[in-house]
């Protein structure tokens, strides 16, 4: 197994002044399951293609287990990629697809056959080896594509949006399978996704790309609890941003003084609290806010609030929201441990 290190990786597509990827530094620990997260156009697919060797970087290096793979042909990198679309070879059977890489390595047919049978059982496709790709369901095709890459035991497995083409009911199953295969094989795996809930549910490490730059990397919780910038907080569903100043464990803003948790840097900043962390009723950091609107969202309700001229948004369970009447005043608390201060936007 091998750690993957990207340093100063830059890619510009012909004629554009803005880099698709700008000086990306990222270390992916050996054997980890990392999500490369970002909206469309953020450079995540570019990063993946650079690692796979399908395109060449303009600057920077890609190292795998200490050696540079930057100038190696795709087939010599030990990197296997599974695309968003399964892209099975239509002229081959399912078994022919799964065994493709081994056949290219020149392995004898009987060894390929036994490896393929084992791999098919691992992705729960036993007995479907003689089918043609077109005879499989979308989920089965995706699992065939996964098996086709995993059978090679690559040093690094790249998965491009592995869940986005699947029905919601199949997503859980596929997510489960990816986690299961990852813990069985220990292959360093990088999953590209645009969906932050998918990233946090799947990966043990997340790297967020925004506009071709690395915005933040770390365990999934940090993106909710300690986002690095307002853009990161917004990407993860943050909506409450209150400008002010942090001093001696207190944040001064239009909402009045609010107690902060320990370890927050002093100075001007943006106070943020996740909408689901706002509490109704008495408690620390109390406020009186007017209810501006109540929107039923299914499993949650969104409450729009106005306090001290500041708009706040809260998410709460619909039962609690049923007491709230538009236009009335309500007691709200901002629990100190749920507060975080972002650097002021430049």
């Amino acid at each position, binding site marked *: 197994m091998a750690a993957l290190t990207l340093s100063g990786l830059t890619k510009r597509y012909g004629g554009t002044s803005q880099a698709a990827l700008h000086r990306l530094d990222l270390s992916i620990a050996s054997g980890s399951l990392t999500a490369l997260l970002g909206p469309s156009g953020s450079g995540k697919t570019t990063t993946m293609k650079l690692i796979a060797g399908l395109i060449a970087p303009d600057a920077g290096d890609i190292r795998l287990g200490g050696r540079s793979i930057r100038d190696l042909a*795709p087939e010599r990198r030990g990197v296997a990629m599974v695309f968003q679309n399964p892209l099975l070879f*239509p002229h081959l059977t399912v078994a022919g697809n799964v065994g*493709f890489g081994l056949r290219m390595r020149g392995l004898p047919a009987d060894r390929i056959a036994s490896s393929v049978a084992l791999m098919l059982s691992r992705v729960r496709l036993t007995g479907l080896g003689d089918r043609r790709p077109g005879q499989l369901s979308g989920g089965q095709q995706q699992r065939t594509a996964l098996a086709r890459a995993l059978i090679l035991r690559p040093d690094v497995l790249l998965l491009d949006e592995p869940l986005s083409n699947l029905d919601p009911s199949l997503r859980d199953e596929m997510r489960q399978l990816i986690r299961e295969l990852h813990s069985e094989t220990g292959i360093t795996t990088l999953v590209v996704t645009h969906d932050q809930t998918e990233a946090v549910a799947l990966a043990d490490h997340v790297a967020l790309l925004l506009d071709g730059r690395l915005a933040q990397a770390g365990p999934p919780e940090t993106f909710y609890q300690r986002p690095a910038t307002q853009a990161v907080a917004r990407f993860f569903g943050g909506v409450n941003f209150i400008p002010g100043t942090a001093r001696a464990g207190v944040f001064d803003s239009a909402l009045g003084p609010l107690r902060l948790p320990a370890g927050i840097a002093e100075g001007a900043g943006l106070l943020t609290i996740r909408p689901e962390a706002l509490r109704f009723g008495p408690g620390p950091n109390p406020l009186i806010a007017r209810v501006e609107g109540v929107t039923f969202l299914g499993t949650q309700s969104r409450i729009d609030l106005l306090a001290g001229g500041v708009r706040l948004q809260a998410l709460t369970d619909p039962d609690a929201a049923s007491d709230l009447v538009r236009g009335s005043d309500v007691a709200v608390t901002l629990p100190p441990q749920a507060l975080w201060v972002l650097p002021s936007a430049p």
Partner: protein
Amino acid sequence: MTDRRHILLLLAPALIVLGGLFLTGLGLTLLRSFRYFPALGLTQPDLAAYAAILTTPGFLKSLALSLWIAATSTLIAAALALGAALVLRQTFPGRAFVSFLVQLNLTIPHIVGAIGILYLFSQSGSFARLAYAAGLISGPQDFPALTQDPFAIGIILLYVWKELPFITLILLANLQTLGEDHEAVARSLGASRWQTFRHVLLPMLMPGLASASGLVFAFAFGAYEVPLVLGAYSPKALPVLAWQAWTDTDLATRPEAMAMAVVIALIGLLLLALVARTLNRGERDAR
């Protein structure tokens, strides 16, 4: 029911042309090849015309020549077209101009191309004159016989030149539909460039390549004007032989001409059926 009537109505013009003109012509050809020709006093159908052509050494030589011409020009054109399509799908400066050049000769009639080949490659043609002027040859007889030659080099040259862009265009359309993602997958699965071409791209292009090549073969096998202009006096290509038999002053050779036409058509049909079967299998496999 109304739907069916509607469809029939829409298809009627095409059906009238196909059924009325083509099938009637084919039927008459068949009847006459069986020596049923009341105007000449032939009222008892028999297979004498077929027996006559099959026992003529000239016919078999012509058949062999036509198969040689069709097979060789199809193979060369298909191989070159494959290469051309693979180059032309990439973006490079001047690509539009090269594409234009490749497509240009699609608009030029075969007969015009044939005469051009004659001017350029015959023993008194431009290249022979150049060779003579350069002192490479001492007379027309020293220039290699590339037209009206026994190996039909001139004819093959013309068909390759003329059919290459046709196959190229079909392959380019196929390549565009396929995209390059399957190849990228193959590379990431450890296939080299050559393996990717051999085991992924070529099999995926095969249906298009086979159907385009089948059409080219059937055309090169059955066309008349090119071997007439560029072919040797003997053996003649099959369509030329058939035309000659039909225009013979001896009307008794007409059934033989018709029998030859039927043989040409049968071989063409057989080939198309073969291609269709291969394609069907490919489609079934892909499903």
